[in-house]
């Protein structure tokens, strides 16, 4: 929209400053039409699948609406309900914070570690790279069910071998203290995306800098600290910020793990509520599902959706920052 208005304004103000020859004006109009034509699929998509539903979400957040009877204006009641009476909100926020701190940190540390390892491997590189990358490709539902089996008390091989080694055998997905660590393990297993990004960044570090550091007598740790890290730190930051955004949206693995471990599959209105066991796997996106599709409380679901939106956009703006933004849109 803005671009169409912009070019029309340019065409309208230009004649007062300098007479624009009609040929040039026609050319400009043709270029604007061409730009609009190329952008049109996305402009429609932006309106229908982003702008309209976002405004509608804001509207419904002030309405009482169960999907059947007509919506009624309720002021801020949905907002106060979510913050004070919805029993899972703060718990879900705490879980999300836990996941952001532990899961993102471990993923970045291990991703960097595996990336470094790959750059040092001399024999069997193809095999190792594929082995490290493969779990990233496993569809999340399939991977979660596989981990639910591996960690399953009694029949799961991981549980079995922990017992043989005399280590504790927690209930993992069935134990509120261990469900988030189990999900973290699943996330670290699927680290292939970060490995590839870090590998590319590490191979871009100029070798002369390593040689110079070695001549100065720098050991391996000092070479990493003073040569490698400063060179790849933008990519590390990128991985952290996108990791935080992804973790804010953590949904599929958490809800599937809860349903598989509890043995109850929840459809709309059925008994399973996310968060199993004992609320330990609640995350914000699951609350939108729970409120909107299981409790038919459209208004409160929209409140949580808007909170999710605000948090996501706050972190996205870090990526877009002009100077250090990794996705800075300046040329």
């Amino acid at each position, binding site marked *: 929209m*803005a*671009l169409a208005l912009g*070019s029309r304004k340019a065409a309208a103000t230009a004649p007062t400053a300098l007479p624009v020859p009609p040929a040039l004006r026609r050319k400009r109009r043709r*270029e604007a039409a061409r*730009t609009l034509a*190329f*952008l049109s*699929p996305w402009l429609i*998509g932006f309106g229908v*699948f*982003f702008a*309209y*539903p976002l405004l*509608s*979400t804001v509207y419904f957040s002030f309405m009482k609406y169960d*999907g059947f009877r007509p919506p009624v204006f309720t002021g801020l009641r949905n907002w106060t309900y979510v913050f004070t009476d919805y029993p899972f909100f703060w718990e879900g926020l705490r879980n999300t914070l836990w996941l952001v701190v532990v899961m993102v940190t471990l993923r970045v540390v291990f991703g960097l570690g*595996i990336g470094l390892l790959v750059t*040092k*491997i001399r024999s*069997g590189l193809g*095999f*190792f790279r*594929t*082995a490290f990358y*493969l*779990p990233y*490709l496993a*569809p*999340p*539902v*399939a991977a979660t*069910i*596989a981990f639910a*089996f*591996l960690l399953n008390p009694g029949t799961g*091989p991981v549980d079995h071998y922990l017992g043989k080694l005399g280590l504790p055998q927690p209930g993992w997905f069935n134990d509120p203290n261990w469900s988030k660590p189990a999900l973290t393990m699943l996330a670290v297993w699927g680290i292939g995306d970060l490995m*590839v990004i870090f590998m590319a*960044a590490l191979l871009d570090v100029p070798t002369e800098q390593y040689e110079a550091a070695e001549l100065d007598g720098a050991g391996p740790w000092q070479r990493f600290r003073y040569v490698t890290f400063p060179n790849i730190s*933008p990519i590390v930051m990128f991985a952290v910020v996108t990791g935080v*955004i992804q973790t804010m*949206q953590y*949904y*599929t693995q958490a809800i599937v793990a809860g349903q598989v471990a509890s*043995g*109850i*599959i929840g459809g709309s209105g059925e008994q399973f509520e996310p968060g199993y066991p004992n609320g330990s796997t609640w995350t*914000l*996106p699951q609350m*939108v*599902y729970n409120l*909107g599709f299981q409790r038919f409380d459209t208004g409160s679901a929209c409140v949580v*959706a808007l909170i*999710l939106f605000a948090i*996501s*956009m706050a972190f*996205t703006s870090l*990526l*877009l920052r002009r100077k250090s933004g990794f*996705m800075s*849109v300046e040329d």
Partner: protein
Amino acid sequence: MTDILSSAARVARRRAALQWVAVHSVAVVAALFFLLPFVFVFLTSVMTDRQALTSDFWPQHWEWGNYAKAWETPGFLTWWRNTLVYAGAGTALTVVSSVPVAYALARFRFRGRNLALMAVISMMMLPPQVTVIPMYLFWAKQLHLTGTLWPLIIPMAFGDAFTIFLLRQFLLTIPKEYVEAARIDGCGDVRTLLRVILPMAKPAVAAVALFQFFYCWNDYFGPQIYSSENPGAWTLSYGLESFKSAHHTNWNLTMAATLLVMAPVIVLFFFAQKAFIEGVTLTGVKG
């Protein structure tokens, strides 16, 4: 003199050998961590019903029939067909609708271009749950299309933010001179894009097509919201979970089904490894 040199060389060689051993030992341990889950899942998938309930590692009898049983479970074929339709149509529509947008954002100069790009990136980072309530009402109450695959497929015809962003990043690396040369040869914008730019952008197009195919194949939230009310419209991701609850003690059948869902993605990866890795690298490139 030569003695000192050769002993220094020997020390260096010994250190290199030690490093080789250390690096490759760590690599083997890491490979075990990444691959053992697949091995366990596979070995359990060929156990008998009774053995699958134990914590045995190695199958006594190789029950290959488990795969046939999983495959013949009511609904499994329908889920496969639906997933292929969703992923196939979704990928094709996404690529066709995103290419012109990415090209305009990379090459055309117009007011509001940076704003449009920022909007693309914001949409890329937007969780689907933010807009799901109005979207569900739209598909269910206005168009009466929930319980079908249409609410999953139709939005793909209007460009996907991630695809647009990635393609734009790649198109920026193609020198402008090619476009100018094409214009001098009398090519219009559409011809330039189709005949000059697209052939050069083949690896990037392949990468985004793969990503989109995987996204659709793996999507759980979309099918859960829009098509779950009708079992005839379930996809593999959604159906697999109900498979687990229907066979809740038969871990062998569930593991066979799980591997059948993973297999196409892994096979596709081996065929298109290069395009895939290039695509992932592109996501981390500075804009």
